[in-house]
């Protein structure tokens, strides 16, 4: 089975780097990155990743807006989107699911939880 492409979207370079380092133990994931929602939409079209891991609060375009756009486009609508956010309250989670996301993780990301979730979507 080939490598799985994951598009990581976060405006924080710290968050992008720590996720990249966490994934470094998983050789079957190829990590691409984008710095905001607009960048994510463009990269998703160009790269067709197997999964998108996206922060919610970002400049230019939020993760929620980007998720809505991706889900309304038939080329990207089937790509699972996992939203990452600092806001774990029910109303924010609800808003996330309404945007079309497949799952929701709160920050700071629990490494094991993240890897388990990716395994559930992408397999071993």
């Amino acid at each position: 089975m080939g490598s799985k492409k994951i598009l990581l979207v976060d405006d924080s370079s710290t968050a992008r780097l720590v996720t990249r380092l966490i994934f470094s133990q998983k050789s079957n994931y190829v990590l691409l990155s984008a710095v905001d929602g607009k960048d994510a939409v463009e990269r998703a079209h160009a790269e067709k990743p197997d999964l998108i891991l996206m922060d919610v609060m970002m400049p230019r375009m939020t993760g929620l807006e980007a998720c809505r756009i991706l889900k309304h486009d038939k080329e990207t609508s089937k790509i699972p989107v996992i939203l990452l956010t600092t806001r774990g309250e029910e109303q924010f989670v609800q808003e996330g699911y309404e945007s079309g996301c497949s799952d929701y993780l709160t920050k700071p990301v629990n490494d094991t939880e993240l890897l388990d979730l990716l395994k559930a979507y992408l397999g071993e």
Partner: protein
Amino acid sequence: MTATEEKGPRPEMQGREGSAHETRGLTFDALRVRAQQLSLREQLERQHFLLARLNAASARLLQAVEQGDVYEAVGEIIGNLIGSEEVAIFRHHSAHQTFLLVWSVGVEKETLHQFGLGAGLIGRAAHEGTSQFRNRRPATPLLPHEASLTACIPLKLDREVIGVIVILGLLPQKNGLEWADFELLKFLETYGAVAAQLQNLQKSSVKP
């Protein structure tokens, strides 16, 4: 007493019992080895995740020195890796013998714009040069602006306290600081100070 009890198990049962005992023994050994493997793997993974966090934090500090945004970087590290959006950073002003707020997020600047040595937990962190965690000192009286305090981390260059990082509330989904958070805060205590001082020197050296 039956014949069986007198003579022990029948020969055909002896063989079976021996085999069952062996199987149980093997299963037990296999389980023990498996448990040991899992425990060792967990130790390695915990270490890997901690190093990933420290690596990301140090890379961000180095980048921040270049960009001149060390305080923002410290706030970003705490926000993303520890889980707080209520952070204030103070610098020591020797002329005024006080600590003045230089950067904050999610904090009311009017109530927390400066403090003196020894006042409350924040002042104690500055005075003693040791990190103060509210849950480790539940009996310590807090000042009004410390009501939601979680931790105060002195920024130390050798023994000199040049500033203090104050972490107020944690994100709602975060129940408290964990072992990896303490390691990261220990890192910031030293290298946050180094980066802040380097940034100051760079700024002062480019002044005409």
